[in-house]
C-alpha cells in the first residue's frame, strides 16, 4: 500500500475509533450493542474496500443491475468485467487478465547462481507453443517504466543491512541452520540485484496484462464467448507459470483507458494498480 492509501485508511478508521470511545452515550444495554455492531460493520467494510474493493463494487453494480458508459460507444457491463462495443450490429466484448510473466520468463527474482539458462532458452518456445493453439485475437501488454537508480539502490542497501543485522543476531542466538540459510539466501538475492544495478542494468517497474476481444451477435453471446476465450487463455498461458486472474472493477476501467493514453509517470502508473495480480 502506498503512502496515500495509508493516509486514507488512517483517517477513515479514526471515525470508528472515536465512535467506540463515545459508546456510553448510547445509553447502555441493547442500543450500545447495536451501535457497536454498526461500527464494526463499518470497519469491516473499510478493510474490505482496502483489499478486495474490486469484488465489492462489482457485486454492488451486479446486484443493482447498474452498467456504465466509460466513453461514447462503449459499455462497461454490470459485472464490471468486460467492455462492450457495438459495431454494425455485432457486439465486441473486451476483457483483461493479469499475467506477470517477466519474473519467470526473463529474469527470476533469485540470485545469479540459481538462474537457469535453459529456462531462458525455453521461454520463446514456450510462448510460441502457448499461443499457437489460440484461435482468437488477444494482446499481451508489458507496461514498463524506469525507476530512480539511486533510490532503488539505497532501498536495496537498506534491506541488505537489515538482513545482515538479522543474520548476526541469528549467529549470536545460535539459531537453527534453516533460519541462517534462509537469511543468507535473502542477502545473496539482494546482493545480486545490487550487482546488476552496479553493472548498469536499469531497475524497472512493470505491469503485464492480457487483453482479449470476443465477438457475438448479441451482448450475451459476446460476453459468453469472451468468458470462454479468457478460460482458454488461462489454460494456454498457464504453461508459463504465471498468475492469470480476470481483471474486474476499477482496474479494468484503467486498463481500458490505457488503449487511448498511457500514464506519463511511474507514480501515476503505480497508483492505479495495487490490488489484482
Amino acid at each position: 500500500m502506498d503512502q496515500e492509501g495509508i493516509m486514507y485508511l488512517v483517517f477513515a478508521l479514526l471515525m470508528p475509533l472515536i465512535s467506540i470511545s463515545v459508546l456510553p452515550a448510547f445509553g447502555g444495554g441493547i442500543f450500545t450493542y447495536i451501535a457497536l455492531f454498526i461500527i464494526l460493520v463499518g470497519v469491516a467494510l473499510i478493510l474490505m474496500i482496502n483489499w478486495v474493493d474490486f469484488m465489492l463494487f462489482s457485486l454492488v453494480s451486479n446486484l443493482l443491475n447498474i452498467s456504465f458508459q466509460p466513453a461514447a460507444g462503449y459499455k462497461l457491463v454490470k459485472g464490471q468485467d468486460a467492455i462492450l462495443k457495438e459495431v454494425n450490429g455485432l457486439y465486441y466484448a473486451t476483457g483483461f487478465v493479469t499475467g506477470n510473466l517477466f519474473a519467470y520468463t526473463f529474469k527470476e527474482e533469485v540470485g545469479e547462481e540459481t538462474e537457469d539458462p535453459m529456462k531462458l532458452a525455453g521461454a520463446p518456445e514456450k510462448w510460441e507453443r502457448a499461443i499457437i493453439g489460440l484461435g482468437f485475437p488477444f494482446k499481451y501488454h508489458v507496461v514498463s517504466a524506469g525507476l530512480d537508480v539511486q533510490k532503488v539502490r539505497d532501498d536495496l542497501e537498506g534491506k541488505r543491512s537489515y538482513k545482515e543485522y538479522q543474520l548476526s543476531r541469528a549467529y549470536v542466538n545460535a539459531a537453527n541452520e534453516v533460519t541462517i540459510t534462509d537469511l543468507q539466501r535473502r542477502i545473496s538475492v539482494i546482493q545480486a540485484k545490487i550487482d546488476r544495478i552496479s553493472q548498469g542494468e536499469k531497475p524497472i517497474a512493470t505491469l503485464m496484462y492480457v487483453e482479449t476481444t470476443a465477438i457475438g451477435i448479441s451482448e450475451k453471446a459476446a460476453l459468453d464467448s469472451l468468458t470462454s476465450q479468457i478460460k482458454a487463455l488461462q489454460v494456454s498461458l498457464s504453461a508459463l507459470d504465471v498468475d492469470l486472474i480476470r481483471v474486474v472493477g476499477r482496474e479494468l476501467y484503467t486498463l481500458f483507458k490505457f488503449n487511448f493514453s498511457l500514464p506519463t509517470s511511474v507514480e501515476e502508473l503505480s497508483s492505479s494498480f495495487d490490488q489484482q495480480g
Partner: protein
Amino acid sequence: MEKKIFIFLGLLGMSFILLAITVALPSGAGFDALKLLVLLVAVLADVLAFASRYYAYLMIPMFRQKKRFIILNDQTPYWLSSSADSVLQKEGEDFIATVYINVPLYRSATEMSDEEKINFTQQVSRLVGLSRDPARFTSELYVMNKDSYIQKLRDTINQVENEEAKATQGGASQSEIERVRGKLAMWRKMLDNVSKATSLELASFAAVSARGSKEFEAVTLAQQKARELMSGIGTTFGVTPSIVVGDEILKFIEPEYLIPFSTVSEQISKNVQEQVI
C-alpha cells in the same frame, strides 16, 4: 488539490458532524433509536469517504444520475492528431498524445539455436527497460483482414450469377450453361474456403504517451519520446521500427479492427447455417 480529496474530506467531515450530533442528542427512549440511525448514516459516510479514493469516478455520476445506465463520459475517448501520427485525449486542462510504434519482429523460436533463444530473451529484457517514462510493448494476435478479398469474391459471384441467368434465359447452349455453372461453383467454393477459418496475424508494437498543455506540445513531446524509444528498439533487435500513421493506428486501439467485420460476419453466418442444418 484533486477533486477526490475534496470528496474524501467532505464525506469524512459529514461523518464526524453526524457523530457529534449523535453524542449531543439527549438520552431517552425515542432518542436512542434516532441516535442509532444517525450513527448508521455517519458510518456509511465514512465508508463512502474511504471508497472515494478509488471510486470517486463512479460515485459522483451514480449520485447525480440515479439511473441503471450511468454515463461516466459521453465524449469519444480519443481523436487523431492533424499529423495523423498520434492519438490525442483531453484530461482536465491537459492533452495526452500517444504514439504507436510498429516493431517488425518476424523471428520464430523454431528457427533459433539455444544460444539465440537466450540472446532473444535477454534482448526482450533490455527492450522493456529501454524507457525511463512508462512505455507499453505489445504482442498482438489479430484476425487477418480479408474484407476486401471477400467483397471481391462476392462481386465476382454476383457477376457470374448474372452471366448464368443471361445464359439460361438467352437460350445459350447446354455446354455454355454448364461452363458458367462450373465457374459459379468454383467461386462459391473459394468463398467457402476463405471464410471457413479465421487466419491470424501476429504484430508487435510499442506505445508511449506525453502530456502537454497544448495539442501540438503533447504531440511533439510524444514524438520525441517515440524517436528515443525507436532508436533503442533498433539497436536492441537490429530492426527498423516505424511510427504508425493514419487508420493503421486503429488496429491497435479499436476492437473491430482486431476482428474485421466482413471476415467475421461471413463466418458467423456460416456457423449459424451449420447449426440450423
